[in-house]
Structures are given as structure tokens and as C-alpha cells.
């Protein structure tokens, strides 16, 4: 722990200068704030010994650097010591045949003079059990079945049934993914993709479902490449090493390498061992007997792992491997790759080269011929380079680069060029080809003689000191595995490390894991700091129980499912969470002795999964690539390239379990973030539980909750029939897995009646709202359909993407005149009459009403454009070209709302906007006479119509989507309330 080094690092002593040393200042007690030791003063002689020592340069015996001294000064945490066999106490009030867990728990309660609380109501218990084991609620039928027979046998059978469900693995995986800070992107500036990371996630789900023994579970992740027999698809498990953040442009590459190793070290030591070894990177651990030497000795086990690199689908890639590929499949993949590269290059060159040459000549126009000639020569050289290197070269040479070429292309050319360029850049070059192989993120050792590991002064890569060799912290009561025999290769080192971590005698691994499972079932672990079993962690509330569980777990063959069974069949687990014992509340308000269960708020994933479960929408597909639920525009807008790393929602995206939502480090969906999912940066074994107003707003007003309420109401109406009483009952059943009591039923029915009355005859508005910020990532755009860019009111309205251009740094912006629009489908004509009031969201820059809209993509028609930013009204005609027909000033700037009347007959358009005393504006001589439809566009922010009517060729056209009945709206309202209730969000 202590060395001169550490004292200097900690600013405690300045060797050679006692007067400037904090230590001396403290023992002299010259400053009031700083007096050491705190309780008594050293005598003058003692102080002068210290002063002399500092003035002599504070020498420290070199052989004492490390654990020896630390061990003397810092207590060894209990969890570092071997797990001693311990028998459940027999003399407790729980009785001799009590469940072993209850024997321990009751014994502690007995000592405190407390009595265990009553068992939970069977309905509460079954709901708790479902969430704990599957992360999903029970149906009311399941609840009632258990309530009818809550016997121990029925309970045990139910436990087995739930453990056998695929949903169990999904629930368990989420917890582990927090621990290993799972993410599918790299973080840092570009936050690039970690391709195929989801296979690791699926491997974890499968491992829990198959009850892969926990020792094999860890071994596969640490060294599955070296021990493929340890688990199914063990190489995929080594994706564990590739989940961390990665800086592709580090300030100090050598230091970044050690940051990456540090990240792995922390995840292993905190995640698997519950020891904060990472704290000893720069100096000896201050609170635990872990020295800086221990840190680097531990690091040496995996010092030679190939660092993360840009993932390329290559056989030699350090981070990607085709798992289980046959020679034949690989040969096919090679052939396809070569063909594809050639094709893409040809396409790209054919498209860009002529434009590129033209730009070059334009740029060189005024230059001296000799200079121009040199530039041309360099340009020709650039064309010889692979495309992926060309851009950088051109940039360096100050020659027109590909971005400028793209500016000069026509719209359609540009689209094609972007697609190709984006593919080249995002997929890592023309040669990159995934094919049909099953690629996974994997670990790999560097070739050749292993790199030596040196102790680094203050953790700085630039300050290597003496060499350290693979070992484990001596304070942990299990000798390190024998050093690797073959010095010429690092192969097998991680296997040795794994064997130490999963050794039956490792005091930490089983304790840490049983504690995590305990926490899952009781909200708080026996050790409340599951990633820190050291001196700074909290002491175990029931140390003997922890040890007993750990031994039992190892005896049971490291079976996690068996551990679940053991815990959830205890009385302690099955107790009521109600606090009805005033004395217990007084003596043990934190309930650390477990006189009752703990109520828990649903975790973020459970909140969204339960909503989908209630509404009947949940898609239970197991595994597969991650999905991208709709990300609100406001959230996308926070990115420098909005939409980067994300995509418009896939078909089932928002109906899958939250486990399958892509984890993009730089873009977390609001529900996960609001409901306290930890960021995937550091290993995280616990989650906060916050209560905030933005949570309330999200569940009340958000799109996700609103859609679930809609679907739930639809389901209730379908299943319960028309009687309101039946509907209220069914809504409770589906949302809360119980029937309402009479008072609740009455309140529900009353709500339905009132809401139905309030919305009856209520005029409806039409809303048009952009779904994306003004600029979006070009890849996002490429995958987007009209409805992903502009939200139309539904019914007869359909969104068209329109045209996007103005590429800037990988983003596109909507064309002002031909951007996304909502088109009224199926109603064509030549003469239009529109009347209605337009309401603009704050900041809306403009709105277009398009008459005779002929072609959704090219957006032909007569456009009445309200330019709110400049207070102008512009009339445009649009066919292949856009032509301005008229411009009127005097529109109010930044208006909140405007009444608008339009009449288009033949070549004459009359317009009344707002109160126009001077009479209508008239435009004559229009040439765009082709019949068409009616369309609406909005710029920047949203737009609503109220009281709108439209006639086309004299026919009155309905603008509103088909109305839901007021009864149905009322039912949806009730459903939304239930999904927001405390009962929905909390487990008893």
C-alpha cells in the first residue's frame, strides 16, 4: 500500500523538504484544519524522527513496495478469505426443518429480537416471481391459478416452469450485460458500430437458458477461443473482450492501449471478482490490500491480447471471426468479395470521375500552367489509389475532394454516390464483405513473443518501471496459477486466468455471483455493493448465509438455476413487503435483516416490456440483430450528425423486448435513460431508482406509452365487448393482472363516462410534424420512408419523403420546396377550395399547402407557401422546374395561427390569409393545370389544422382520419392511466 512513491503521488511528502510536506504539517498540528493523528498529538521526538526521515529523502525499503506492507496496514477484507464450511443454524425460531436460508435469516432476526413478517399474498408473490425470473408480468389467469392453489408443490412447479421459459434467459442476460457494460458501438467521437455484438448478447441469453454452469460461463468469455469445448459457440463468448469503448483517434495511442486493457481489467475484477483492482493502476490501492504491482501482474494475463481495431470482415482480423465456417463457405465468400469490390469501384469511378475532372479544371483555371500540370499529375495519382484512401490524399493535396464532387452532382447522381460512398466508409472499404458467414466479435492474441508488462509509474504508459509477470493479488486467499510454461507465446494465459477465477477455492467468484442473484430477488444484495467486496464496499448483512450459499452453489455444480430455486423457495423471499411491524421498522428501518421483502420499482426494460405484454403486442422472438425503435426527433437533434448510428424503426422494432434494442453508446432512448439504466461505460451491478417529473411526462405524453394505451384499449374492447363494466374489469386484468374491486370498478366506469362526454363532439385537429431534425445522417435517410420523416395524421394521409440534398459532412437537409409532405390520397381534381385555420408550433418556419399535387416524389403542383420566418407568402408552380409565380409581403412573422382560404379555378388562384381588409390576393395565368391531389408540408416544427374543409372539383373531401368513438377514446384514456399507476410500476 504505502511507498515513497505513493506518498509523493498523494502529495503527502516532498522528499528532502519536511517544511513543505503535508505529513509533517499534519503531525506538527500547525494548521487547525489538518491535525494527525486525529485523536492525539505526537510528541516532539516522534515528530522530529519523521522530519528527519523526510529530509533524508523519505527512503522506503524497496522490497517492501507492494502487498507486504499493505497487508500489514490494511485489513484483508473478509471476502478475500477462503469460504469456510458453515452449517445453517439449527436453534432458531424458524424450527429445525426450516429452509437453510431461513435458518440464517431467522437466526439474525432472533438475535435482534425481531420476528419475521407474514408471507406475501399469493397474488403479490406470483407477480414478484414472474418479474424476478422472466422480467415479465403474469397474466391474470396465471395469477388466479396460483391463488387457487398456492401450495409449496404448486409454487415449486411454477418456479421450474418459469426457469424453463426462454424469457428467463432474456431477463438474466440484462443483468449480466450491465455488468460487462455491453454496447454495440465504440463511444468516443465517431461512436462507430461494433458489428455482430448482438451474437454475444444472444450467447448470454442462451447460456442462462441452458443453465450453463457459471464456471464454464466465465471461462468461455475469458478464453473460449482457447477452450472451444467449454460451451456451445464459446468463441462468440469471447466477444466479452470487445465490448468496451474504443478511441479510434487517441491523443496518446500508447496510453489509450493501456486504457483499453484497464477497461478489461476492471470489468473482470469488479464484474467477476467484486474487487476494485482498477484503483491500483496509478498507486497502491488506498483501502484494499492490492498493490500497483498486483495491478500490473494481473494485467499481464492478457497484456498480449490484440487491441481492438476497426472491424473488418477478414480472416486475419483481430476482432472478427467467422464462427464455424466451413472451407467451402469461406471460398465462396472470397469469390463474392472480389467480385463485389470490382463492381463497386467501377460504379463509383464511372459516376464521379467526369465530374471530378471538371472540378479540377475549374479550380486550376487561374493558376500558372506549370502548377496546374503538377496538380493534374497528383490528381491522376489519386485516381490510382483505392477509393478509401483517395479522399484523404486529395484533401492533403488540396485538390477537389469527394465532398466537393458530391456537391456538384445532380440530385439523383448524388443519391447514388452517397449510397456507394457511405457503404465504402461505413463498411470499412470496398474489400469488406460479410457474405453469409456467421461473424462474431472475438478475442485474439498477438502473434510471436508476448509483450512484457512493466509496472507503470503513476499508471503512465510513458513511464515503465520494473517488469511484472502474470500473477494474482496475493491478498486473495488462493495462490496464482503456475506461470505460463511457454515464454514464446501468450496462448493459454487467459485459460490459466479463467481457471483461477473459476477455481472451487476462489473465495470471491462464487460469493460475488450468489450475491448478484440474491440482489435480483431481494432488491439489495447481502453485500449491498455487488461490484466491491473490498474494504470500501459494505459489509455483508448475513456473512454466514453468503458463505453457505456460495459453497452450496459450487457444490451444485455452479448451477445458476439451482441457485434461483434455492432462493425463491425460501420463506424470506416469499414474505410480504408491507411494513406493518412498527418495532421492526424502528430497530431495522433499512430492513437489512430481512424481516420483510423489499418492494421494487420495475427496471427500465420491465416498464416497456410490461406495457407491450399488457397490450398484447409483445413480440417474443428470441434473439437476432438489434432493433431501432423510433427515436424522438428531439433526441436525434442532440447528435452532431442526427440519426447517426441509429435507423428508422424496423417492422417490429418497438414491440420487441427492450433487451433487443440497440445499445448505441452515444444515443440512449429516453425511457431507458429516464428509468435509470446505467450507461455502458463502467461495470455496473446496481441501478439507481429515481423519481422524476420527466419520467411522468414520458409515460403520460410520450409516443411509446400512448401507442401502448391505444393498443391496450383496442384489445380490451375486442376481448371484453361493449359493456363498460366488462371493459374496466378487463383493462385492470390486462394492465395489473388482477380484477378491480367495486370501488375501483365504479371509478373506472365513471372515468369512461366522463371522458366520453368531454370528448363527444369535440372538434378534431389534423397534425403534421417532422419526425427528424432539419439535417439527418445520410445513412438514416437512406433507410427512411416518408412516414419516418414526416408524421401525417393517418387515415387518407400518406407521407412522401420528397427530396433531400445539400450534403454537409455526412448529413442531408430537406429541399425547401420539394421536401417531405403529407399527401391526401385518392382525391384528384383541378379545382380546389380550402378553408381552415393553421396553428404553428413555436419556431415553425413555414408551411406549404399544395394544390394539384401531381407526383409525390417530384412534387409537382401549385404551392402556396407561407414563409413565417420572413413574413412572406409565395406562390410557386412546380413541374420539372420550380417557378415563382407571385410573392406577397406582409404576412405576420412567427404567427401562432392563421386562417387561410384558398380557391383555385383554372388558371386563377385567390388567397385570403388572416384578416385581409384589402381583399383577397389573386394570382392569374397559372400554367400548371394538370389535375392532382392536396398536400401539406411543414418546415422545422409542427403544424395543425383546425376547422379545415376542402372541396375538390365541387366534391367535399374528408380530411380527418376515421374518428374513434368517444367511448373508445375514453377507454384509451383509462388504459393510459393504468399504465401510469404506481401499482403498474412497482412490485410488492
Amino acid at each position: 500500500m504505502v511507498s515513497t512513491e505513493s506518498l509523493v503521488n498523494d502529495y503527502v511528502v516532498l522528499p528532502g523538504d519536511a517544511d513543505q510536506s503535508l505529513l509533517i504539517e499534519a503531525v506538527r498540528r500547525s494548521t487547525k484544519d489538518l491535525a494527525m493523528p486525529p485523536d492525539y498529538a505526537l510528541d516532539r521526538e516522534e515528530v522530529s524522527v519523521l522530519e528527519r526521515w523526510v529530509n533524508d529523502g523519505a527512503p522506503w525499503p524497496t522490497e517492501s513496495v507492494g502487498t507486504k506492507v499493505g497487508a500489514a496496514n490494511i485489513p484483508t477484507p473478509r471476502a478475500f478469505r477462503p469460504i469456510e464450511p458453515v452449517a445453517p443454524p439449527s436453534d432458531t425460531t424458524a424450527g429445525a426443518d426450516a429452509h437453510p436460508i431461513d435458518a440464517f435469516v431467522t437466526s439474525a432476526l432472533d438475535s435482534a429480537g425481531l420476528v419475521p413478517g407474514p408471507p406475501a399474498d399469493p397474488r403479490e408473490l406470483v407477480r414478484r416471481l414472474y418479474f424476478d425470473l422472466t422480467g415479465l408480468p403474469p397474466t391474470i389467469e396465471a395469477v388466479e391459478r396460483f391463488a387457487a392453489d398456492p401450495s409449496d408443490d404448486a409454487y415449486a412447479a411454477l418456479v421450474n416452469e418459469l426457469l424453463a421459459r426462454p424469457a428467463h434467459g432474456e431477463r438474466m442476460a440484462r443483468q449480466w450485460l450491465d455488468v460487462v457494460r455491453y454496447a454495440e458501438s465504440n463511444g468516443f467521437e465517431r461512436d462507430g458500430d461494433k458489428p455482430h455484438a448482438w451474437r454475444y448478447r444472444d450467447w448470454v441469453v442462451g447460456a442462462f437458458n441452458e443453465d450453463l454452469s457459471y464456471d464454464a460461463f466465465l471461462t468461455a468469455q475469458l478464453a473460449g477461443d482457447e477452450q472451444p469445448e467449454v460451451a456451445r459457440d464459446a468463441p462468440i463468448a469471447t466477444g466479452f473482450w470487445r465490448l468496451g469503448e474504443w478511441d479510434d483517434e487517441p491523443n496518446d495511442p500508447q496510453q489509450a492501449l493501456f486504457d483499453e486493457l484497464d477497461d478489461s481489467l476492471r470489468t473482470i475484477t469488479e464484474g467477476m471478482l467484486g474487487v476494485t483492482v482498477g484503483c491500483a493502476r496509478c498507486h497502491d490501492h488506498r483501502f484494499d490490500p492490492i498493490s500497483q504491482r498486483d495491478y500490473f501482474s494481473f494485467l499481464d494475463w492478457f497484456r498480449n491480447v490484440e487491441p481492438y481495431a476497426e472491424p473488418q470482415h477478414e480472416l486475419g482480423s483481430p476482432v472478427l471471426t467467422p464462427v464455424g465456417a466451413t472451407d467451402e463457405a469461406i471460398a465462396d465468400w472470397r469469390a463474392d468479395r472480389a467480385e463485389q469490390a470490382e463492381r463497386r469501384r467501377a460504379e463509383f469511378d464511372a459516376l464521379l470521375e467526369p465530374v471530378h475532372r471538371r472540378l479540377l479544371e475549374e479550380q486550376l483555371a487561374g493558376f500558372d500552367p506549370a502548377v496546374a500540370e503538377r496538380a493534374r499529375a497528383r490528381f491522376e495519382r489519386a485516381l490510382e489509389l483505392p477509393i478509401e484512401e483517395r479522399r484523404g490524399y486529395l484533401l492533403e493535396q488540396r485538390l477537389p475532394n469527394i465532398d466537393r464532387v458530391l456537391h456538384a452532382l445532380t440530385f439523383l447522381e448524388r443519391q447514388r454516390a452517397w449510397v456507394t460512398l457511405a457503404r465504402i466508409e461505413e463498411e470499412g472499404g470496398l474489400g469488406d464483405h460479410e457474405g453469409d458467414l456467421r461473424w462474431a466479435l472475438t478475442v485474439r492474441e498477438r502473434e510471436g513473443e508476448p509483450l512484457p508488462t512493466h509496472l507503470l509509474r503513476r499508471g503512465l504508459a510513458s513511464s515503465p518501471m520494473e517488469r511484472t509477470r502474470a500473477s494474482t493479488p496475493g491478498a486473495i486467499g488462493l495462490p496464482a496459477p503456475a506461470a505460463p510454461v511457454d515464454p514464446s507465446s501468450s496462448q493459454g494465459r487467459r485459460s490459466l486466468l479463467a481457471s483461477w477465477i473459476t477455481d472451487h477455492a476462489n473465495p470471491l467468484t462464487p460469493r460475488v455471483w450468489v450475491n448478484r442473484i440474491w440482489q435480483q430477488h431481494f432488491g439489495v444484495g447481502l453485500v449491498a455493493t455487488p461490484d466491491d467486496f473490498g474494504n470500501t464496499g459494505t459489509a455483508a448483512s448475513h456473512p454466514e448465509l453468503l458463505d453457505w450459499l456460495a459453497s452450496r452453489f459450487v457444490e451444485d455444480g455452479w448451477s445458476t438455476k439451482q441457485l434461483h430455486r434455492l432462493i425463491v423457495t425460501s420463506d424470506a423471499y416469499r414474505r410480504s413487503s408491507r411494513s406493518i411491524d412498527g418495532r421492526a421498522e424502528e430497530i431495522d428501518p433499512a430492513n437489512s435483516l430481512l424481516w420483510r421483502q423489499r418492494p421494487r420499482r420495475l427496471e427500465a426494460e420491465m416498464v416497456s416490456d410490461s406495457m407491450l405484454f399488457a397490450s398484447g403486442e409483445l413480440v417474443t422472438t428470441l434473439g437476432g440483430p438489434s432493433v431501432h425503435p423510433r427515436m424522438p426527433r428531439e433526441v436525434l437533434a442532440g447528435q452532431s450528425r442526427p440519426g447517426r448510428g441509429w435507423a428508422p424503426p424496423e417492422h417490429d422494432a418497438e414491440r420487441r423486448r427492450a433487451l433487443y434494442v440497440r445499445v448505441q453508446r452515444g444515443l440512449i432512448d429516453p425511457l431507458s435513460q429516464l428509468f435509470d439504466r446505467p450507461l455502458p461505460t463502467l461495470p455496473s451491478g446496481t441501478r439507481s431508482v429515481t423519481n422524476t417529473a420527466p419520467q411522468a411526462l414520458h409515460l403520460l405524453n410520450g409516443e411509446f406509452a400512448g401507442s401502448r394505451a391505444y393498443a391496450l384499449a383496442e384489445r380490451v374492447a375486442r376481448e371484453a365487448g361493449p359493456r363498460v363494466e366488462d371493459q374496466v374489469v378487463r383493462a385492470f386484468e390486462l394492465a395489473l393482472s388482477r380484477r378491480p374491486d367495486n370501488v375501483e370498478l365504479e371509478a373506472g366506469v365513471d372515468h369512461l363516462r366522463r371522458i366520453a362526454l368531454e370528448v363527444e363532439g369535440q372538434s378534431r385537429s389534423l397534425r403534421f410534424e417532422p419526425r427528424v431534425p432539419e439535417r439527418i445522417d445520410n445513412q438514416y435517410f437512406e433507410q427512411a420512408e416518408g412516414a419516418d420523416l414526416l408524421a401525417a395524421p393517418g387515415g387518407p394521409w400518406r407521407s412522401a419523403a420528397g427530396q433531400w440534398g445539400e450534403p454537409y459532412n455526412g448529413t442531408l437537409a430537406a429541399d425547401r420546396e420539394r421536401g417531405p409532405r403529407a399527401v391526401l390520397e385518392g382525391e384528384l381534381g383541378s379545382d380546389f377550395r380550402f378553408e381552415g385555420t393553421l396553428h404553428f408550433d413555436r419556431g415553425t418556419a413555414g408551411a406549404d399547402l399544395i394544390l394539384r399535387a401531381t407526383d409525390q416524389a417530384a412534387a409537382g403542383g401549385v404551392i402556396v407557401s407561407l414563409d413565417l420566418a420572413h413574413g412572406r407568402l409565395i406562390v410557386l408552380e412546380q413541374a420539372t422546374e420550380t417557378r415563382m409565380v407571385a410573392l406577397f409581403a406582409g404576412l405576420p412573422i412567427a404567427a401562432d395561427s392563421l386562417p387561410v382560404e384558398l380557391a383555385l379555378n383554372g388558371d386563377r388562384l385567390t388567397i385570403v390569409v388572416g384578416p385581409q381588409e384589402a381583399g383577397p390576393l389573386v394570382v392569374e395565368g397559372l400554367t400548371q393545370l394538370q389535375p392532382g391531389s392536396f398536400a401539406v408540408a411543414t418546415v422545422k416544427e409542427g403544424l395543425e389544422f383546425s376547422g379545415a374543409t376542402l372541396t375538390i372539383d365541387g366534391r367535399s373531401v374528408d380530411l380527418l382520419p376515421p374518428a374513434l368513438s368517444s367511448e373508445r377514446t375514453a377507454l384509451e384514456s383509462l388504459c393510459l392511466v393504468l399504465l401510469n399507476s404506481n401499482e403498474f410500476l412497482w412490485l410488492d
Partner: protein
Amino acid sequence: MDDLRTDRPSLSRRDLLTHGVRAAAGLSLLGALGGAGAFAAPSALRTLPAGSFGRAKRCIFLFMFGGPSQMDLFDYKPELQARDGQTVDIERRVGDVRKSVILGSKRSFRQFGETGQWCSDALPHLSAHMDRLAVIKSLHTDSFAHGSAVLKMNSGEIRQGFPCMGSWVSYGRGSENDQLPGFVVMHDPRGGPISGPANWSSGFIPGEHQGTLLRAAGQPLLDLAPAASNLRRQLPIEAREEQLALLRTLNEWHQASRPARTDLRARQLSYELARAMQDSAREALDLEREDEETLRLYGISEPSQADHPMSLGSAPFGRQCLIARRLMERGVRFVQLYHGGGHQQQTWDAHHGVEENLSIHCPEIDRPIAGLLSDLDRTGLLDETLVVWGGEFGRQPVSQSGGEFQVANALGRDHNPKGFSMWLAGAGVAPGSYGETDELGSEAVVNRHPVRDLHATVLHLMGLRHEQLTYRYGGLDRKLTGVREAHPIEGVLA
């Protein structure tokens, strides 16, 4: 109530407020938070000017994303002008030393006020306020990449996942207004900063200290208004009230058999707050309540006076600055305004022409910031408000582009983490020029300070001792200023 704690020791809201008060009083948080450091770092014991500690109740951080060019704004270097066109060796990236051509500033500089501080003609309105500013010219940072450097400036770490300064301040000092978040972030209309939401994250400290994005257009906060597909959008106000009433009733019934559960009560309360927030957020953003003179002061009312087609003019940032003042009045603890969003010339990232970049962005901020300082001063708010201005790093004294094929107005400057300027103004700040870069403005040489010292300074002014404002996570008492020694910058403290 059960204490479902994240990590020991987590603090309840009440604890937080208590700690806030303790911190403000300059008492040790270490004991209270369970930290057991044998010795406090020396910085805790140094005598700092007593008058400056805790003078600021609130803070506005004007973040110039992209990295403004110090030698074209505040860091006047006659030598740079004189040696324009000469070739020097410049380390552009760590270990990457190249022959580069010096690019003199095209700006003319003048000294202003009693402090005689230099400012270029790029900021004619702001230069009238030089006597309010403490310009720190000798900062340096750890990364030349935007994504990492912006995070460094915000959270003290170059990677994401760590609490930002606003979160730390919110955590340390709590909120003065229950109906508005304690840490508010507003973006440039062109987009967010690189590395996005990590820049207003609360990292591992509880989510209530997360920066809340406030929007100048559309709905002010996410979900403040119902989504288009949410039925509440179409419900009359009475019906929405009915919903909240039913929710309250159901929650009360649920609570009745769980009387001790304060967490359930708190959750019900969060709905009441959410409702109140709908009004308070809109009200805070409602600039129609401001008079014409004020709007003019911030450059909001006039049409865009910028020459460059990419420039947005002064109105957008002026609105944000005015909103920031309104948020200060309402007790929001920490407001961070981003100027510049997206990439390259959309930000201060002047690779492709520093003159062009200045002509786009200076007119956007000049009147708004000058207006903000005047307005805070005339309303008395400046006495208790700290204003921080700056970006994630500075720029190079040499031309990045150039070369024989390049047109002159596109001469750009690359990133420079080794020396850059920021300024502080307001509560507890001693105006004047502080620190120096070398003769070209390239590298901080006199009174060099890393970013953590700037963080320590801001916390100090906000009444928080940086070494005591800690949160235990992953076995460490984590701090905004990190594990290395940090000190408030004494030279800028009143």
C-alpha cells in the same frame, strides 16, 4: 422506506441539500460521504481569496463548440502577424511535428477599458465589456479530437459515462426551483455537439442531475406536450385533468395499504410536478414578456446582419442568451448554451477558413453575449451569476490548408489542445488578462492550467470544494477534477 441504493453511499434528496449547504459553508464533505482519505490534498488547505468562494449561485456556460481561434479573438500576438508566411515546426498531433506556414491573424486588435485587455475587431460589441472579463489565455487540454475534448471540458474525462459539470453542480447545490430542472442545456439550431448526449449526462450519479434539453422551438422539453399519436393530444384540458385525478385516486388507494412508502408518494408527486412544469417551462421561454429594448439588446429583433450566407445572424443565439437570463431569474442552477452544432463551418471548427468561420460565427454571438452581460448587470444578477465562455480547445497559429492550389480565404487553422483561451465573468471573478501562450499563441507557457483547474475554479465560485464534491462509484470517490491534483485558478478570483 427501503433504500434501494445505487452504490454506497448514495444520497437522498434531503441529504443532498444538506450537503449542498455544508459544502457552501466550506465544511468537509469527506466525513459525511464516508471517504476516508488519510490526508486531504494540499489544495484543500491553500488559502484562496475568501471573497470569491460561493459568490456565484448560478452559472451560464456559453460553450463555443468546435474550438474558437484564440489568436483571432482575445490572444493578441504581434509576433504572429509579423511572421505571417514564415515556416515553423509545429506539433499538430502528439509526436507529429511538421513544417507549417504561420498564418497571421487578419484581425486588428485594440486594448479596452481599465484592464486594457486586448480584443479583436471580430467582436465589436463584446469588446466594450472587456473590463468584466477575466480572460484565461493559458489553458491546455488532453485531446485534439472534438469528441474527447468536448467531453473533457464537460465532464473532466475524455470518454463518456461521467457526470458533467452541470450535473456535479446540481448534485452539490441542489435546485432552487422545483418546477424547472437544475441543469439545463440548449443546443445550437444547427445541431448538437460531437459525442452528443454524453455531454449532458449525469454519468453514474442519479438521473435527476442529468442535463435537461430545453428547446427554443417546438415543445420546450421532451414530452412536455403529448406526442401526435398520444390521445392526450386530442383531449380537452378537462379530460386531461380527469386522467390525473383518476391516477391520483388509484395511487392513493394503492398507497392506503402501504402507508410507509414515501417512494410511492414521491412518484405521485412527480406527476404534480410534471403538470406544473408544463406551465413553468413555457413561461420561462416566453420571450413575448420581454420589452423591445431588451430584445434589441440581445440582437433578437433586427434582421440578420451577417454577411455570410451560412451565418444565422444574432437572433437565434440572442434568444438563447435571453432565455438563459430568464432561467437564472427562476433559480436554475446551471445553464449551458451551445453555440455551434454539427460539423466544420457549422461550428467554430475553422479547418476550412478561419476568416470565413469568424464571419459566420462572430456576428452570431457578439451582440447576444454583450447583451447578456449588460442585462445581467442592470438586473443585478451578475453579482450572483458566473458566466463562462469558451470551447473545447483552441487553434493553431499556422495555416492548415494553404499550399499552392488553395484560395486565400479558405486558409484554416487546425485544432490546438496545447493552448487556448476562455473567459469568466460575474460573481467572484477578478477581471483582467491571466496567463500567456508563447509568442505565436500556440502553447500555454505562463500560468499554465489544465481543464481540471478550470473546473475547480467554477466549483469554487459556485461554493463547492472540488476535492470534497465526490460520489463513490467503482471503488473510488469520484470527482469532476479526477484523481490528479487540481487547484482553482487564483489569479481570476476576486
